């Protein structure tokens, strides 16, 4: 047995004995949700009070590619139709307000504010990306699930200091995320339904609860299409942002 074989054997033994590291699990989760080069979808958004009824229902269109490139536009109701945001990178965001016929750059710190009255922040809407901002470790593992604790990296500008993520071991899809600022639980994201379409997994029904405001937002995804070359089509541009929603 040469040295290389020994190294491989030791690595396998270590992985078998201790399982995947937190970072490896997080990488797998992100890979399972962002394996495609781009995605477009229609989403039905429902807003409501946790201890009350439904307040409002909207239709959104989403386009995303990679970790940061996103366009989100409202299709209904009429009072928000064609309002949209464009995220070009983590520090370059634009908003289009049809009433002003103008694309306006918005400040980066807005990314942690609620997106147009929903319980998702601008950073969270249409995105599932944590590894750039968080260190991950496994805190619990059983036959079905892995529990990760994500801790904010020292130089990160992420809003939450800690996130507890429950992961399904079978397909490395998230089941639930609890988000904390220091020790205070702020939001809970629950994956209510997931679906494999073509070769990719998608979270088809998710619910974000804001525990302080006792408010929730549910998003149901439909008409999801992958890998249509959105970058080449110029979707992540101000030009596209100004176009009305079809």
């Amino acid at each position, binding site marked *: 047995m040469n040295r290389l074989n020994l190294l491989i054997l030791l690595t396998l033994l270590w992985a078998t004995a201790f399982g995947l590291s937190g970072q490896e699990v997080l990488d797998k989760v992100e890979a399972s949700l962002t394996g495609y080069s781009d995605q477009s979808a229609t989403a039905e958004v429902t807003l409501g009070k946790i201890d009350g009824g439904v307040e409002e229902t909207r239709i959104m269109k989403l386009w995303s590619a990679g970790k940061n490139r996103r366009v989100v536009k409202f299709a209904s109701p009429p009072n928000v139709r064609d309002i949209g945001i464009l995220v070009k990178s983590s520090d370059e965001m634009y908003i289009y307000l049809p009433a002003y016929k103008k694309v306006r750059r918005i400040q980066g710190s807005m990314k942690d504010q609620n997106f147009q009255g929903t319980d998702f922040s601008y950073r969270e809407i249409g995105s599932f990306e944590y590894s750039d901002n968080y260190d991950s470790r496994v805190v619990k593992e059983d036959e079905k699930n892995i529990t990760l604790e994500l801790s904010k990296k020292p130089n990160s500008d992420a809003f939450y200091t800690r996130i507890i993520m429950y992961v399904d071991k079978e397909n490395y899809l998230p089941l639930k995320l609890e988000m904390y600022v220091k020790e205070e639980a702020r939001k809970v994201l629950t994956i209510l339904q997931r679906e494999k379409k073509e070769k990719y997994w998608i979270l088809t029904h998710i619910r974000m609860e804001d525990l302080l405001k006792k408010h929730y937002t549910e998003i149901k995804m439909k008409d999801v299409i992958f890998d249509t070359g959105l970058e080449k089509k110029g979707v992540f541009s101000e030009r596209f942002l100004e176009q*009305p929603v079809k």
Partner: protein
Amino acid sequence: MLRRYFFSFILIIFALSAIFAGEVSTGLELNSFLGLSLTNADFIYNKTDLNLKVKSILSEEIFLYGCLGTSYTGIFQENISTKNNLENASFFYPVEFSVDEAYISIKNFLLSGLDLQAGKQRISWGKADKINPTDVLNPVDLSMITDLAKKIPTLALNLKYYFPGLEDTGIQVVAQPYSGQSVLPVTFVEKRLTDKIKKNATNVSALEIDENWNGSVITPAYNITNGLIGGKIFGKIYGFDLSLSATRRINDIPYVKEIYLSNEVTIDYSHLDKTNAVVKDKYYLLDYHKETIIGFDMAKDWGIFLSWIELSVTFPDETKTKTYTFSSNIINNLSIPIPVPPYIITTNISTNTSLTEEKTILKDPYVKFVAGVDKNFDGGWYINFQYAHGLFMERGYEDERLQDYFVLNLEKTFFDDKLKFRLYGIADVDNIVERFKDSDITKSFMDNSAFMGAFEVCYSPLMGVNLKLGVMGIDGNGEATLAMYKDYDMVYLEFSTSF
């Protein structure tokens, strides 16, 4: 007649959509504004706008858009001229119909990357927040003091070409067959003229002048020579959003071309300190002038705040004002000194004089600019601060000189963004550099500044449904532009939504 046009237009829009089998979306937008004067309890504004917005998406790259407006202005007519008006609903409840916007938009028109938008449209330039010296393609609507950034859509051919391989970088060319004219409260022109006469009335112990003027306006000839042409190059470099523009147009705000004054001056030679002047008749003639505007703007997110700079250099065509003054002089107690022996002959005589003065008011270029920052904080706080040199109606000459503005907007939201408190203030200083040169700086500032402050509470039970209650106060001295709005202290209520 207008109603017939209005409904015909709606039918045409729907018919066209049906023919092209496109997807049609419609929406009604409602805005109601009631402003009550704090000084005399008069209604300053009582306005309800209902706009029908129709959009027909004919294909991935072509859509039609139309916005038809109805506006009810419920300012009570004070003088009922005839009894028949009692039977006339439009006398008490006047409603206006308008085609606010109507255009076709074609993406990748003729070649890839070229977008065409043709029709009556709003074309918004500039990266600053609401105070945009480069936003000169549509005339300004100054009829509502709460929205001095409002612009009127105009007929235009708007071409944008995006350079291949460069994201959001390209050139834009805009051609308008006819430059639009602004909507503005003309009493401001009269107030400014009246103040100027008062200021220039030297050697007069008493001056009688009221603010009611006769006036007329020469609108530019309705032909293609009075159109607008503009171009812009825009792009991004190292995180900066930049653009450089040039526009040739007719300034949308008229200037005073001619002034006619008829005075009666009474001079008493035995009491020279009691010279009295009465301005009997006053008339002005307004006209529009052409200008070329070079604009530049820039915005950048620095991580901790967003900043922008926008400036315009205006090269006006030479523009002159003529003043015709006719005076009837009544001279009392005219003393004629005779050397020997000394005695006085007292007599009263009357003479007439006329004087014509011509003055170049616009010739040299002037620079308007604005610089601002904004930031969102945790907990629903938002702050926006801008410094501006020159507003829309200011033109860089003596009477309409560029003034300095400090604009602060502070917002705080509560209850899941449903409730918003907004504090808004503008400090207008008439030439800040000159103020610092004065010996008593504080007094100089107070005598040449105006302040506007507003506090609003906005309730939004649903996104896009807003109920606003606000109070606004304006005060100022000297020739600060904002001081002209002194009569607009008010409490206001606004409701807006769309469905």
